[in-house]
Structures are given as structure tokens and as C-alpha cells.
């Protein structure tokens, strides 16, 4: 029927980026199973998918009491040894019966939540952007915990180079004419509504994680630039505040790196509007220009001082 997910993204709580082997060790703790790592074009390490059982209310724009039971798939990942994500999703399907089944039934369908009773797909999809009620399906809470597990690893020194909020991206994917809509809600909340042709594949979840990652990078860079108050503070002070962006963020921008070719058109469409990469590039230029101006001023000051 449709698939819902939520991705949380944050800065890994370590002073520097961690090497591939440490990424493995950190994620290993989560599951004991094999961690998957890809190295090109950027080191990306991901835990295997883990299941969480749920029996709860489902989102509904009309506030109907829709119940569902089943399992959610979740995983933690680390990109570039620097950015950490907790991601969860589940396919919502109609149940063959109106009665709650034993857990063995749901465990045989990992990553599926079956709706008990009648439901309209549109009503579910329209309701998903709202924060869930106390007894509602809360994919965000699950993803946050998958992120916590990584952040609290004893292998990390917890001396992150700057403080930054996590962002959350809630997504829903339906079948139909291909389309994508990305919406910024609060400072930390985003939603994506995506329509795809053919069956849902996990590649859609990969795409949403990739979008979440880049949206976080953009958000973090904006925050760092705002804190630097370019023009409002003396040059050297602004330069010091911009430095963490250069040290830790600028090299991480690799849109579509892990996105299936079939889905890369979605990224291209978002790059046209709202224009993620354009905005990123202009911010990067701004940071580099600032640092260049500051370096020039510094050199001039030094040579002036030497002449006296």
C-alpha cells in the first residue's frame, strides 16, 4: 500500500572523524553481525537491519483510530567517519483478517505492519507528517535510539568539534506517477513525499537516507555560518568560527553517491528545485572566500608589521 520511514541525522560525537575500522567496531556493538562497508566515493558503514515489533495506532489525517501490528526495520550508519544516522521504515499493508495474529505471523514478514480493519491509503499518507500520539507508530523514537547507540559507544571520545542539533526527515512512499516533494517544517523537521513506479524497493529508503544526510550537511553549514556572523564580528573571530566547517563538513557532499540509478532522477529534480547543490556550493564559496580574505588581511598585517 505505502511505506513510511524516518531518518535522524547527527554529528558523530568524536573529536575527529573515525577510520573505517572504528566505524565497523562501533556498529558491530549494535548487532554482533557483519557490518557492511563501502569505500567509494566516501566511506559508508551500515549495521544490518534490525527488527522492532510494534502494535499501535497508525497515522491518519482524519484522526481515525487505525490499528496496525507488525515490525519495523531499522539500522544505524556512519558516513565519512563523521555523520551518523538512525533510520527506520515499514511497509503498511492490509491484513488478510481483522484479527490480531500471533507474533510468529508478523515475524515472518519483516518490515511489514498490517492494518487491522479498513483504511484509506491517502488518509494514512496525509497523516504521516503530524507528530504521532502517545500510542501511535513512532518511527522517530526508534530511529533516535538507533542513533543514541552509536553516540554512546565507548569507542568515541565525545569531544565533538561543535554542537549541532540532529535533524529528522520523515518520509512516505507511494506507487504511481513519479514525483517527489521535500518540505522544511521546523528547524529540525523535514518531510519527503515520494511517488515511485513499480514495487517498493529498499533503494527508496537509501535515497531518503541520502537526502537526509545532505539536508543535515546543508543545515549544519548554515548554522556554522550564522554563528560566525560574517561582517558582524572581527575577521579573525569569524574565521575561527568557520574553521570547523572546513575541517569536518565540506568534503562530505556527495549527492546521489549511494542512490540506485533508477532513482537518481529524484535527486536531480530536487537539485533543480529547491536546488540543494546550488545552495551548498554558494555556501562553500562563501566560507572559502571569507577564509581567503582573512588570510590576505593577516598577511598584509604581518608584512606591514615587519616593515616598521
Amino acid at each position, binding site marked *: 500500500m505505502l511505506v513510511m520511514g524516518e531518518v535522524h541525522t547527527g554529528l558523530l560525537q568524536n573529536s575527529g572523524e573515525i577510520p573505517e575500522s572504528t566505524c565497523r567496531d562501533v556498529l558491530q556493538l549494535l548487532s554482533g553481525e557483519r557490518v557492511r562497508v563501502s569505500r567509494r566515493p566516501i566511506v559508508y558503514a551500515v549495521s544490518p537491519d534490525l527488527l522492532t515489533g510494534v502494535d499501535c495506532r497508525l497515522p491518519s489525517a482524519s484522526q481515525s483510530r487505525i490499528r496496525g501490528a507488525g515490525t519495523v526495520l531499522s539500522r544505524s550508519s556512519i558516513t565519512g567517519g563523521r555523520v551518523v544516522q538512525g533510520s527506520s521504515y515499514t511497509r503498511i499493508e492490509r491484513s488478510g483478517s481483522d484479527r490480531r495474529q500471533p507474533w510468529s505471523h508478523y515475524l515472518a514478514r519483516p518490515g511489514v505492519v498490517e492494518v487491522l480493519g479498513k483504511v484509506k491509503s491517502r488518509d494514512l499518507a496525509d497523516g504521516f507528517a503530524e507528530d504521532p500520539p*502517545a500510542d501511535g507508530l513512532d518511527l522517530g523514537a526508534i530511529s533516535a535510539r538507533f542513533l*543514541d547507540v552509536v553516540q554512546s559507544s565507548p569507542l568515541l571520545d565525545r569531544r565533538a568539534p561543535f554542537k549541532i542539533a540532529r535533524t529528522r526527515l520523515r518520509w512516505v512512499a507511494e506507487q504511481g506517477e513519479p514525483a517527489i516533494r521535500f518540505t522544511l517544517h521546523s528547524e529540525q523537521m523535514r518531510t519527503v513525499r515520494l511517488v515511485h513506479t513499480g514495487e517498493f524497493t529498499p533503494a527508496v529508503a537509501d535515497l531518503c537516507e541520502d537526502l537526509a544526510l545532505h539536508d543535515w550537511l546543508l543545515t549544519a553549514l548554515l548554522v556554522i555560518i550564522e554563528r560566525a556572523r560574517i561582517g558582524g564580528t572581527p575577521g579573525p573571530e569569524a574565521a575561527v568560527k568557520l574553521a570547523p566547517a572546513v575541517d569536518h563538513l565540506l568534503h562530505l557532499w556527495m549527492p546521489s553517491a549511494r542512490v540506485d540509478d533508477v532513482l537518481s532522477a529524484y535527486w536531480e529534480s530536487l537539485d533543480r528545485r529547491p536546488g540543494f547543490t546550488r545552495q551548498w556550493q554558494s555556501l562553500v564559496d562563501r566560507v572559502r572566500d571569507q577564509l581567503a580574505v582573512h588570510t590576505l588581511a593577516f598577511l598584509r598585517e604581518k608584512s606591514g608589521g615587519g616593515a616598521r
Partner: protein
Amino acid sequence: MLIFAISDKGGTGRSVTSTNIVYRHALQGNDVCYLDFDFGSPTAGAIFSVGSVARGTTRKGLHDYLLGEGAPEPHRVDVWTESDREGLRTKPPGAGRLVLLPGNEGGGELPAVEEETLRRCVQLFSRLDEEFDLVMVDVSAGRSFTAEMVLQATVRLPSVPFRWLVFHRWTRQHIIAADGLVTGADGLLDAGTRFGHKRDALRDRIRFVRTAVLEPDAAELVGLRDEQRAWLFACDTELRELASRHKVGRTSMLGKIPLDPILQWREQLISDEDVLASKIANAETAAAFDDLAKKIVDDAAWEGL
């Protein structure tokens, strides 16, 4: 950095002073948040002038969150957008985020420290530390389960820096009581050691803050008779001696806030506008908050005693 605000008694000025420190710290360009853990009397909403949470929140507050009552995340209030005070409703250029996590309206003290509650507390501190430069926690007055909970939580977060501020008034009773809260039987040091802190290391992370201090040479006292002024001087000297005997003296004091008439009338933040434009507050008071907001993160002020 986590800062825990505690006092031996209620009504010492702990909430008013700690909220003003946090506000000043935000103005100094830091992202800060304030946690109202004084579950018995959640007043922080009123001090930040956020009417909707003046006596705590009716949504999922910290109390619900810690007790696991259907709140995966506690309610957050962005003071720069939600305050009813005109002058607080726009973030000044260069200021950081200022976020309040209110307690529950009608919450009540924690009944005990269950493992699950402690786990949630650790998770909360850990997430907030990721996001904010400074997390100020109003722990409530006296020996409480809340104080025990945060002492235990900080044992489990060995790499998250934390400090304690003990607020007290400048009177005989308060000086003795503040010392007792730290060094007395089952005080902070006893309890902290029981939970796994090292006594001396914990001692180094505790400083005192004197609230509503009337200096004998203050402008307010100009109209006093000579006899009265002489008596006040003698009193003040005696209190200083008492304070240093109780190790609440100058070396372990982080700062003092002068008595300010407007704070006697109303619990509120003192803005620069209150000092410069409407002139209802004293410049010395704002300066004292500003100074403390710097000292809480200034390592030199926290070197071993």
C-alpha cells in the same frame, strides 16, 4: 557542559538566578537550554515569560518523560519565539538558541529513582549535550531523589563535563545550610561518593553563588543612620568569617548577585532594556549575571581549591 543548580532551601533565588545566567549565556553567543527539574514547583516558564507554560506544561513535560509516560521526547519551548515579553521575542544578532524544557503542571516530586528513570535521564543529558553548549538543570531544593538521579546520571556519562552551583542567601542560616548541603551527612559529597564519584573531584566541581546580596556600601543604604550602617558592616564581616569557616568563602564562591528591587517584586529575566531604556533594573545586577554567565565556563574560576 551540564550545570546543576541546587540550594538547601526554597526561595533562595536559585531559579531566578540560574535562568538569568542561562539567558546571559545565550546572549554571549552560546546555544543553551534550561531544564526545569524542580518538579514540585516548576516556575521557569513564568520567569522566561512564557505564559503557556507558566506553571509547567500541560503537554509532555520532563516529569512525564522521566517517568516514561508516553513521551519519547519532552516538550521544548523556544524562548526567542514563544515568550510573551516583546523584548525577548526576537533573537538578538549573535545570540545563541535559548530553549526551555518545562516540567509538568502539577507534576510532583520524583517518588524514587528507578533504573528506567535514570536511563531516560542519561539519554536526555546525552542528547542535549550533543546539541547545546550549555545545559542548565534546576535541581530543586535540598536532598531529593532528583539530586540523586542527576548524581548517578553523571557517573554514567564520564566524558560529559558537569558542574554544580549551590545558591544561598547572605545570612547566617543560609551559609550554614549551604555548607551542610554539600559536606553534611548525606549531602552532595556523601551521596555522590556513594554513587561512584570521587569525593575530591566532585568537590572541585561545586561552587557557591550568593543571591540577593545587600552590600553595606550599596546605594540603597544611603539613607541609613550611621549606627545602622555600622551594624551592617559588623554583620557582613561576621558573615564573611562564618562563610570562610564553612568553606563557602571567597575561594569556593563563583559570584554574587546584588539584591535588586525589581526581582523582589517579580521573578523575571533582566534584559539590557530593563537597565538602559526603562531603567527599572540596576546595571550592577545585569553585570553580575553577565559575569557569572562567563565564569561558569571559565576553567580558571574552577581550578582546584
